[in-house]
């Protein structure tokens, strides 16, 4: 009997386990499909609102994501900055992660970089669901009317 083979038996067993157990996970993961989308439109504030120099923060969401008990609205895709008025933005829409497209925006009227604090509550927000989606180019108007509200305040809508 080969003594060295016996001595190395645990190592051989471990190496075999590593190979056998590790093999199923070795295939490369496929890249998630993405659609290149251009979103454009108008960000509108109430008449008379002073907007000079104010930033608008826009977040894009899947309307719905996942399935079963994990199914939920408003899965964030990405955020970007723009200004009141017309805007154009290009982004990659991860098709496998959810469906639909929602644009939420808020305007930083007090210029502090935060969507309202407990002492300054004038920043306005709004949300629009893109009706004609999926598409490579979409257009939306977002009316910023509500102070200190997150996207969940608007969506899903109460009548749903």
């Amino acid at each position, binding site marked *: 009997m080969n003594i060295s083979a016996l001595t190395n038996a645990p190592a051989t067993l471990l190496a075999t386990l590593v190979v056998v157990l590790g093999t199923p996970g070795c295939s490369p993961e496929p890249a998630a499909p993405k659609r290149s989308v251009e979103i454009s439109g108008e960000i509108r504030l109430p008449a008379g609102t002073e907007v000079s120099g104010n930033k608008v923060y826009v977040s894009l969401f899947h309307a719905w994501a996942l399935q079963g008990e994990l199914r939920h609205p408003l899965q964030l895709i990405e955020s970007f900055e723009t200004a009141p008025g017309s805007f154009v933005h290009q982004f990659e829409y991860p098709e496998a992660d959810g469906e639909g497209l929602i644009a939420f925006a808020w305007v930083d009227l007090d210029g502090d970089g935060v969507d309202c604090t407990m002492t300054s509550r004038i920043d306005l927000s709004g949300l629009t669901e893109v009706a004609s989606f999926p598409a490579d180019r979409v257009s939306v108007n977002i009316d910023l009317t509500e102070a200190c*509200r997150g996207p*969940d305040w608007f969506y899903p809508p109460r009548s749903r």
Partner: protein
Amino acid sequence: MLHTVNFQAGSDPMSKRAEATASGGPRRFAFLLLVLAAALLAGCGRAPVQPGVLVDGQRLAVVDMHLHTGTWEAMTPRFQERLAERVPRAFRWVMPYVTPYLLSGKAILRQLNNAGVSAGGVFALYSPHSTGMASNELVAAEVALDPQRLFGFASLRVDQWSTQGPEQLAALEAALKGPGNFIGVKMAHAHQQIRFDDERYYPIYEIAGRLKKPVYLHTGTSPNPGTRTEPPYADPAYLEVAIRNYPDTIFILGHTGYDSFAKALTFTDSAIRLAATYPNVYLEPGALGAKRADNVRLDFVQRVKAAGVISKMIYGSDGPQTPGYVKSHLERFVAGMQEAGYTVDEMRAVLSGNFSRVFGLPPFTVGVSG
């Protein structure tokens, strides 16, 4: 009446080694998984455990109010990916099989035994944007394994509040009134993507106050995917109106505003100010005993002491996370309190006394049985 927990000799002999291994990198963690599985299958020997922690010759009872259960299937794909990153890619397929050994009620009890912890709070979660779900029913089943040591915190869905709010509130109230051993409510605004200052969620606090079930709220940020990091979702200052409006509701500010994403005490002073100002506000230091918080822990415990709110801090770890985490978190946090000059009585209050007082439970003492 004292709440004496007799520890079964249930120390997990693998945990210390496992923790050391886990900190050594993904390859070692994979090895840990194999070793852990082998140890569990073999039912290898168990060593007696000394309950509590030894401080200046006195052994103090410990309650860890912040623990998580869950199943692989109810985690979101992104959170599954985050957990799986700890394991070499070739071995990630084992994660569904390993998860019960980390997150089940039995696994939690093993970690409590290993850490000498008398009891723990187990949280329900409804966070489909970030980590996933741990339903009230799951938590009730897990805490039923040992209702003398495991206490549940019920939660509810808020992601479709405008259409489902009333039924979710009814379900929460039913859970709190039911037989599930629920002693409190768990909320995680940053994970659930709702603002602290949104008054539509105030009925949750009304129910909690009426039923005398303290509300634990995650404050600060988190490194978990899908978690909001902006101040309205992370800074407990945005809770102040609710705290004032519901004086009969106890608000426990989880993580004390620790900005775990940035590894900084960004919102901690907000939390401490609220605890110092309002009699119905308490603090919890979950994750501040983790290695990730080494850079801020001493500063944190010093701030709590300087503000005079030690009597309002209730210990929790945010475990079990990885094998040995509950124990290592406790050891680091106790060391931090010692370094900051906490007295034995102050540490006794933080580690179990404040928990018993706030939740109306008998004081915990330590006891050992063979």
